[in-house]
């Protein structure tokens, strides 16, 4: 690789990028290393390696804490919500973006504005509503909420994807006498598949991290999600000054997300790239 002066911007920015990534990686490494330290060690030598790589912190956190249960709850709620959202969003995104009907721009606009609706604005009335059908503190209720609140953004995303698909194939299908549903299922879906997958992963990640709704609607441990679990772990361990345990707990919660995400990421990026790449 020759060094070209004209490429200086590239070298500089690459350097910046490396620092950025280095920082990210370093931070997580530090977190992991610190989780093996005792509280005193954490504050004494930020950079020092722990004296012993004991798993004490981890054992302490795991025995006192129902991590597995929270993980399971999160998996159930988030997976089902994501699937529901996709199933509900795709057809309507198609209708709004390709089948211009009277009022379609009004409907799309209201969904787009819906993206900006903060949960704080609506969750008191929502709570009263949900409790009237006795679905508070239940995974079912949370799933409904997750699904509905994810609709605006997902519809918006999918509308964007559908718009990039040329109509020529549809026209051909129409001439051939296909019904709208057939045309949708046989033609649109496969072509937008990568977009739908990407949207699905976006939604999944967002819901996984979600904590406000869970905080308000779930009150017992057996139905808590992982983000709720993390939050209570943090408050709990802070009060006993167990910072080593806190770090261990955070690592335990974060690691699965990262690993899980790493596996999916390939597909995700590939999907997005392919979907948009289809000029």
């Amino acid at each position, binding site marked *: 690789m020759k060094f070209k002066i004209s490429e200086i911007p590239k070298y500089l920015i690459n350097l910046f990028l490396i620092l950025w990534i280095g920082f990210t990686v370093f931070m997580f490494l530090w977190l992991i290393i610190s989780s093996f330290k005792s509280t005193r060690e954490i504050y004494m030598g930020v950079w020092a390696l722990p004296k012993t790589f004991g798993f004490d912190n981890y054992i302490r956190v795991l025995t*006192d804490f129902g991590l597995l249960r929270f993980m399971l709850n999160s998996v159930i709620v988030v997976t089902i919500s994501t699937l529901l959202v996709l199933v509900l969003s795709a057809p309507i995104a198609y209708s709004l973006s390709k089948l211009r009907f009277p009022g379609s721009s009004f409907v799309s606009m209201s969904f787009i504005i819906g993206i900006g609706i903060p949960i704080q604005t609506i969750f*008191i009335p929502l*709570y*009263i509503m949900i*409790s009237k059908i006795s679905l508070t503190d239940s995974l079912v209720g949370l799933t409904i909420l997750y699904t509905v609140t994810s609709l605006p953004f997902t519809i918006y995303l999918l509308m964007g994807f559908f718009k990039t698909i040329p109509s020529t194939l549809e026209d051909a299908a129409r001439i051939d006498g296909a019904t709208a549903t057939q045309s949708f299922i046989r033609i649109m879906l496969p072509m937008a598949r990568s977009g739908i997958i990407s949207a699905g992963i976006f939604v999944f990640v967002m819901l996984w991290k979600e904590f406000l709704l869970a905080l308000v609607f779930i009150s017992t441990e057996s139905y808590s999600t992982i983000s709720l679990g993390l939050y209570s772990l943090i408050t709990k361990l802070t009060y*006993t*000054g167990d910072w080593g345990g806190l770090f261990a707990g955070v690592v335990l919660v974060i690691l699965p997300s990262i690993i899980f995400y790493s596996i999916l990421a390939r597909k995700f990026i590939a999907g997005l790239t392919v979907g948009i790449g289809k000029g």
Partner: protein
Amino acid sequence: MFKKSNLLLSITLMVGLLLLSSTMVMANESFTYWSMWEKGEPQQKVLEQAIKDFEEQFDVTVNVNWAGRDVVTALKPRFLSGENIDMTDQSGEELYGGLVAGGVAATMNDVLEMSVPNEDATVGDVLIPESYDAYVREDGSLYIIPYNFITSVFWYDKVLFNDLGIEAPETWDEFLEMSEILKDNNIDPVAFGIQTDVYRGYFPYHAAERILGKNALNNAASDPTGEAFEDPRWERVGDILYQFSKEGKDLLMQGYESSVYPAPQMDWVMGMAGTFYCGTWIPVETREAAGENFEYGAFKFPTFEDADGDPTAVETYPIGFSVLKDAENADLAKKFVAFFLQEKYAKQWVEVTKNMTPRAGVEAPAELADAKKLLDNANSTFRLYDGVQADQPEWYASVFLPLASEVLLGEINGEEYAEKMRTETIKFWENKNN
């Protein structure tokens, strides 16, 4: 054949009916308790044991939800939807500021008259009055029965003070002397983090308690004319605060302008600062980090000459139960309250959680011995922030805290502090009463 199956059927029916009716009889009483503690915390363990014992002794069920610190917040939507929750617990400040202010708490005065199960005394007999008397309203109503007792003091390391030949100060002048010695030895006198509001409010309100006395701050906060702040003693309060700042006598630790929990206590416990003003939960939180060569000692906020406040007074910060107004099972819940105040649980509490108990006659944990002595010797007590955070939360957040910042950063001096408190209070009330 026919007859046999008939017989079988009727026998089954009868047995079934018997079982059914017996379960209906067995369906016992219960009450619902939402707790501020989280599963796994030492406090939760003690309560859980008590709950089990209670269930056994009285053959009832307790539906407990370990909701965590935000329990009062979590309760709100539930009230709105009409769910029945009988009892909760939190600090006096949060209970009064939230539930009582919201009109949903029931009075607990009757609990004082109740006898403690398995013992010969009433609740009122066994509780230290200082643990709740600050919370008795003008009309005599009380909305909390405490089971945990916290106060706040200046903490220091006895080992360190011994080495440097310092005695725990009583008066402000002694406090300043102590600070000089610490500084000479390259130790910051007071650990502090201004960005954490819990700490920020401590010194201003304590100064007010010493100089003007109890309720002065609270009354001044609710005076829309601001006249209360024209009292010249407020300038003295401001002066004291200014002395803490880096523009004054520079008593606060380096970097306090940007320090956030848990930095101040960590810095203190690692020897970078000499004293730390905080609640009696500190030994528990810092024990691990303190290392072995550390002995917890405490002294109260310094006293001043020619001051109108009670020099022996200390802060009272009880944590206790509160039963809700429309609770369906209020009586059973209150019974549990009395039950939990038995001596054995108080002792367990002290042992397991290392906190003090409001039960008379039970010793405090070793680290809190000094604090307990201060409490015993106090002639009066005052509420945290003089009750301002609970009674006037918005004033507290938009007038009191920002001005506390300004003076503790040395941006304004004592005179300006008093003046600004006056003008900002007037402005605040004008806006509110628009």
